[in-house]
């Protein structure tokens, strides 16, 4: 158990640093800003595969967990950011102030997506997993299909319906 906890902790660290790298590459208009979530998760896999706690996992299973880690890191960050916007006092140096706008909207959108995904999971856990893996983990349709044990056609259909449902939820929710 301790080992699993450590492994996950390491994964969260990696996920965080990868996301930050991605974000800062984008911000600085770096040429490598084309890094996709796929590359991100692959990178995390390269860095963690073979570590205790991950050694027994298949790459696919790892990506599934990594996607979850990415989601949690981002949601957590969004919560902090959002809370700050709600008038939480800036206590730490690290709470830099943001210009109102994109940031808050990203944060609130992410939080809304998270809530909607939780609702979707109640309707269809498979579809929620699929969205999480695709969006946060950058998994391709073929990989997702393989992971969920369905045909690619089914995975496609699931994705499309889930995406439509989420769009409806997100638009009506805000």
């Amino acid at each position, binding site marked *: 158990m301790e*080992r699993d906890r*450590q*492994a996950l*902790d*390491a994964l969260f*660290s990696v996920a*965080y*640093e990868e*996301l*930050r*790298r*991605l*974000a*800062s590459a*984008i911000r600085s208009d770096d040429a490598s800003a084309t890094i996709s*979530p796929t*590359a991100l998760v692959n990178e995390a896999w*390269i*860095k*963690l595969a*073979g*570590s*205790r*706690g*991950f050694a027994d996992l298949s790459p696919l299973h790892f990506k599934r967990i990594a996607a979850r880690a990415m989601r949690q*890191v*981002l949601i*957590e*960050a969004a919560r*902090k*950011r959002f809370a700050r916007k709600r008038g939480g006092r800036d*206590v*730490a*140096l*690290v*709470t*830099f*102030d*943001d*210009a109102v706008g*994109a*940031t808050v909207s*990203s*944060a609130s*959108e*992410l939080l809304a*997506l998270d809530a909607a995904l939780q609702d979707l999971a109640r*309707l*269809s856990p498979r579809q929620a997993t699929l969205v999480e893996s695709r*969006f946060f983990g*950058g998994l391709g349709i073929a990989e997702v299909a393989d992971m969920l044990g369905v045909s690619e056609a089914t995975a496609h259909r699931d994705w*499309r319906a889930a*995406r*439509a449902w*989420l*769009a*409806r939820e*997100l*638009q*009506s929710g805000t």
Partner: protein
Amino acid sequence: MTPDRWEEVQAIFHEAVDLDPEARHRYLDAVCGEDAELRSEVDALLRGDEAGHTVLDRDLGSVATGVLEERDEGALPDVVGPYRILGRLGEGGMGVVLLAEREDVGHRVALKVLRDAWVSPTRRSRFASERRTLAQLHHPAIAQLFDAGALPDGTPWFAMEHVEGLPLTDYCREHRTPLGERLRLFRGVCEAVQHAHRHAVIHRDLKPSNILVTADGAIKLLDFGIAKQLDTPLGEVEQTRTGLRMMTPAYAAPEQVTGDRVGLHTDVYSLGVILYELLAGRLPFDLSTATPSEASAILLAQDPARPSTVARVRRHSDRLPGTAPGRSGWADLDVLCLTAMHKEPARRYASVDALIRDVDHFLRGEPLDARPDSPVYKIGKFVRRNRIAVSLAVGAAASVIGLVGFYTLRLGVARDAAVEAAARTQRVQGFLMNLFQGGDPAMGPAESLHVVTLLDRGVQEADALGAEPVIQGELFETLGRVYQQLGEFTRADSLLQTSLQVRRAALGASHPDVASSLVALGSLRVQQAEFDEAERLIREGVTLARARLPLSDPRVANATSALGKVLEERGEYAQAITVLGEAVRLHEVQDRGESPELATALLELANSHFYAGNLEEADSLSRVVLAMGRRLYGEGHPFIAEELVNLGAVQYEWGRFDEAERYYREALALTRAWYGEDHYRTAANLTMLGRALVARNRDDDAMAVLSEALAVQERSFGPIHPAVASTLNDLGTIALRRDRLDLAADYFGRMRETYRQVYPAGHWLVGIAASNLSNVHGRQGRYTNAERLLREAVDQFARFQSPTHTNTAIGRVKLGRILRMQGRHAEAAEESGAGYEILKSQPNPLTAWLRYAATDLAQAFDQLGHPERAAEFRLAMADSASGQ
């Protein structure tokens, strides 16, 4: 909505979604019929499909940017601790680096603040570890830690030296630095890394952007953010891959890519890449367009072009400024660089010291120690080198070091060797000796044979150096001490004797070098347990050194330490304490502060106090040594573990078993991390922990710990070894206490057999084993067996210790009990009485055994019809009980 309903909605959605509007309308009317709610669900879904454009359609990267990136510095606090923030210097994976100024004194610092600690505890501990690492390092070429603290919300920060300068490669390009100067800068980098290595810190992320050159040309090494304390028992996950996490792949060593063990050799590799870049003008591998997996493949499989080849095809403006090295110069630079960055850690320079030496060789126009891919070649090297007498001794030692490094790496004790090596490089000899420290008995016969074979060749080469007696004498001494470390005492003996003779013949009987040979030979005698001879030799060495050298000479201090050690081994604790105290003072003067030698002398002094029973002094000195060791070696060096064990032993003697346990456990964690699970030192540590647990009546825990120790010892020493026997004794004692008599008989039986094979001619330890086994037989009522064993024990004690030794007395007392159990009261009274008398005559009689004997004597005399004598002993029993 329910899951079923959702299925239904989706089914309709999929049918409808690709129809044209009219067909879709018709279809939906037909399917949904009167169910308006179903219809509206499906409609909403179809609208969602068309509209899209939610966060899901955005790039994750841009979303991440929105939530993770801060906008500007507008919201920076103005003040952190005593510092006023002036601006931002940059950011890394861990945190933001700010430029700040100390308000009272006005000096500027770089202030690093951990960002987003909430992500995982790992971040917080890694940040703390960087701070600790910096606190430990004090070197002009390493950015210095000044201060640390936490913000009101607990966010940690630390302040360090603010360095203004250019990354090493940029500096060289902009200043058109010529080759010689580049190598001197590179050497400065190596020295900084070497300093870190001496503190058991691996940087793991060496690259030009972490190495700044200031305007006046000074080197500053920065960013120990992913540095690793060699000994820190990191989480297992951390241990494998963290290194790569933020490592720049271009400078990453193959083992960082594969997740194999990183070590000092990892930094050697990165230094090699940096040197490559300085020489060739570009990186060895072009990874700019490679995906991570391609990059790893390249790093693992591809051989870099020789720097000379790359440099020659550079455009003129990119070429190395200044005089170009000639063909042979380039050949040496190629070898130097490619040896440092060899894909196999074992084939690299065994340490940064070795790398520095070769840089120096190059700068002085001397041949390198390294040869392309041929470590074995090196040994043959020093004969060819004997024209260059100046560097010969150093070179020869370095050759052996190269070899030894090579083989010890192969043995899997690279860390012992490399770090031990790094700890004391001032003296070539010390360096070489230390390569072997801790590795010796752990080596299997086959492996030590390798080393010995090579050393044998080294000896042959040394033999051929008759024309250079000064160097030959030194070499013989060095090789002799290496053999001593390897446990090859006969070989060591003849080499050290030869060293002494050669030096006496060449330099005269009273030359200080002769003193050095005398002390070395004497120290060997200590290990051979020939204490008279040892003391004589070392005293002669001390006298000579004191007569011929100033007191401030390190050889005087070393000789004095050696004398203290021999006195300690002889059990002359009072004298040892005096002499070691003197050695401590000499080292203090000579080393101007703390040094490994001083720490060792203090450690021996603490030991002497311990054995002399001065537990207070032993305790306080051990604490001093521990603190000094931490400053000298860092937190987790084996020296620290040794000192923790010593402290534990003091607590144990005081009966503070819980504290003893704590120290032993702390030591065990370090020992394990350093030497690994299967090392005899780990076993020794487990054994001590087991004893502390026994003392705390935690028998089951103790048995588990001791069984583990036994298994390790059997693997590392083989089944026939005194250490194995000693652990068997502990296990037997617990088993007996738990009334597991068969098990106890098995343990003690194996113990006795082991000692008998270790000491075929007899030994008091054989007696201890027999005596302990007799306890089991006594409990089982097998008195004949017990009697036989006890007679054997008494015989061994009397012969190998003395007829009046405590052990002899205890043996006889126990024998008396067994005889009485058999109704042989007269014989019982005789044995018990004799034992009783011996015990009684000792300065601090063992009251428990006195009572034991008195009980038997009282009963025996009752049986023998001497009630008055029986009453006498009953009175004695009461006395000793009340006297307690």
